[in-house]
């Protein structure tokens, strides 16, 4: 009992409960400081692009690229989208947009289907030499595209696919394969093998397990793959221009044409607007699904 009173007096003394924290601790200043400085670095180009695209040429010539426009004009955007000329075609980026979409959709679908099936086969259905193929595939990720340009021309020619949409889709599938397969393989190998075994006991075959068991479980990694492919394919210039013909040229080709067309003084505002317009689709995807992306990366790309 004597003890109890002693405890009682002591318990009135602070500290008690949650330790009070200062909002402006040195640590916080450092962390947020670092983040803010880097955010500035990351945002600066976007800021410049947006601001410039909203200015008229005279204002640009006068000067400060960082300053917001005195007079906002959407003229450059309109021009970039529907008026900028390439050779004789003065319909801006609009023509390329639908081409890009037409290229994008089958390419993304096919490349992801193929890569995910690869990853699936490499994880659960190892066959003799499958690791060798996988290793070669990873080496493939390092081959500069320029190196493969010519052999692929020959290949496509032999297959009779040169210049067609499907030829391009094939090229995207092939070049997306290494990294995507790696991604899927890593992800699938985190899925317990027992699940796969259970499905086999349940009489599901190769495709049934893939479609009914694994696919529905692998949303995060599919999201990552879709994001990577959409960005990659949408931004692709080289393949789009080399392996197709003008009526299929993607938006980036138009962008290149607009940006590289030397028409007196460079119309920076139009260039920036065109750049932004071209980047809109991947940017949108990143802004919308950034969180899923990180989750997917955590789930698939990085493993011990």
């Amino acid at each position, binding site marked *: 009992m004597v003890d109890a009173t002693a405890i009682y007096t002591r318990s009135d003394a602070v500290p008690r409960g949650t330790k009070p924290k200062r909002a402006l601790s040195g640590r916080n200043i450092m962390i947020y400081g670092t983040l803010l400085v880097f955010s500035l670095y990351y945002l600066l180009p976007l800021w410049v692009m947006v601001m410039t695209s909203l200015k008229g040429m005279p204002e640009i010539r006068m000067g400060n690229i960082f300053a917001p426009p005195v007079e906002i004009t959407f003229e450059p955007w309109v021009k970039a989208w529907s008026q900028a*000329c*390439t*050779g*004789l*075609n003065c319909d801006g980026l609009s023509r390329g947009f639908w081409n890009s979409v037409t290229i994008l959709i089958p390419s993304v679908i096919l490349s992801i289907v193929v890569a995910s099936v690869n990853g699936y086969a490499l994880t659960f259905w190892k066959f003799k030499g499958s690791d060798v193929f996988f290793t070669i595939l990873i080496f493939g990720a390092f081959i500069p595209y320029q190196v493969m*340009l*010519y052999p692929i*021309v*020959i290949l*496509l*020619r032999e297959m*009779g696919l*040169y*210049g067609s949409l499907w030829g391009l889709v094939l090229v995207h599938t092939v070049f997306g394969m290494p990294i995507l397969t790696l991604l899927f393989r890593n992800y699938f190998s985190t899925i317990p093998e027992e699940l796969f075994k259970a499905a086999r006991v349940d009489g599901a075959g190769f495709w049934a397990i893939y479609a009914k068991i694994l696919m529905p479980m692998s949303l995060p990694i599919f999201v990552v793959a879709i994001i990577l492919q959409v960005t990659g394919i949408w931004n692709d210039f080289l393949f789009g*221009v*080399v*392996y197709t*013909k*003008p*009526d299929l040229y993607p938006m980036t*080709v138009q962008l*290149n*044409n*607009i*940006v*590289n*067309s*030397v*028409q*007196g*003084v*460079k119309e920076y505002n139009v260039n920036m607007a065109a750049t932004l317009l071209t980047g809109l689709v991947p940017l949108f995807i990143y802004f919308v699904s950034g969180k899923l992306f990180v989750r997917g990366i955590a789930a698939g790309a990085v493993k011990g």
Partner: protein
Amino acid sequence: TDLEVTHWWTSGGEAAAVAELAKAFDASGDKWIDGAIAGGGGTARPIMISRITGGDPMGATQFNHGQQALELVEAGLMLDLTDVAEANNWKEVVFPPSLLDACTVDGRIYCAPVNIHSPEWLWLSNKAYADAGIPVPTNWNEFVETAPQLEAAGKIPLALGNQPWQSNLAFGAISIAVAGLDVWKQVNVEKNMDVAAGPEYAAVFQAVADARKLAAKSTVQDWNQATNLVITGEAGGQIMGDWAQGEFQVANQVAGTDYTCLPGLGLNAYLSTGGDAFYFPKNKSADVEEAQKRLAALLVSPEVQVAFNLKKGSLPIRGDVDLAAANDCMKKGLELLAQGNLVPSGDMAWSPDVQKQNEDLLVEFWKTDMAPEVAHQQWVANLKSGL
């Protein structure tokens, strides 16, 4: 018949010129499908070649005169235009004849030349010299002499873009100007390597070494940005092809008052005659082949030549047309052309491989403090690799 035509003419003047071609072609009931690829020949050529070798050729495509398409022709991928040429008398009308020679392989003609471009021009800003209080130079030597004064007035004496081909072009212009026509011909036509290694060319390299100091402050990328420096008077001058005057025109500058043009850098008034030509890849369909031949004939026809070259600011490939509407600088060129002060262009003389090597070398030479002797030696070695 629809005919897809690929080319890398995308600047304002160029596009307008192409429009003339298209208009003329469409007028005959065919259809010109435009396949412009911006970024210059370097970007466009791989695409064109890929498509031709990939078995999905376009109807017609631009190449520079000379050896660029040689192998495609040799591989039998190009349409033989000899009948068109004969029917339209190209042998007589095309002037200078070297243009047609460049299209001829084993006696057959495979391309239709459309224009002549001469790179050896010095463009000067009258305003810059006015600002510095000195008279506008009349030749390259004067330009070099007055450069320090310009610099003192806060001007960049020589504008030079960062793209490799610009360095190459400037070297070519200086070499004709400094070494003189005979020496130039011995090296580039007769391929006399002793002359190439000789003191005349050593002097050329020395001259370039001097010139590169004048361009040290020039930090632009594209050639038209460099031209723009001249237009605004920030730079004294620029060595650039005749296409530069398109830029002056767009900026509403008047030759003689706002700017001055000196063909052959004002020293040796000779122009090399490179240019563009159209090739017609072999096609399976007979219809297309007919259309290709129609287009070939059309390109060389006088009306199209006039319309096209006026817009393009280049010289026509036939001597029998009248370019009354041409401006001051263009007329200077026409005059030289008429006098026959012409030399074949590098595109015709040397393989792309040699040219590329020299381009690499000259870029380095212009932009670093590489010793002229070293560069000279390497240059000769490069030429020898192409013999």
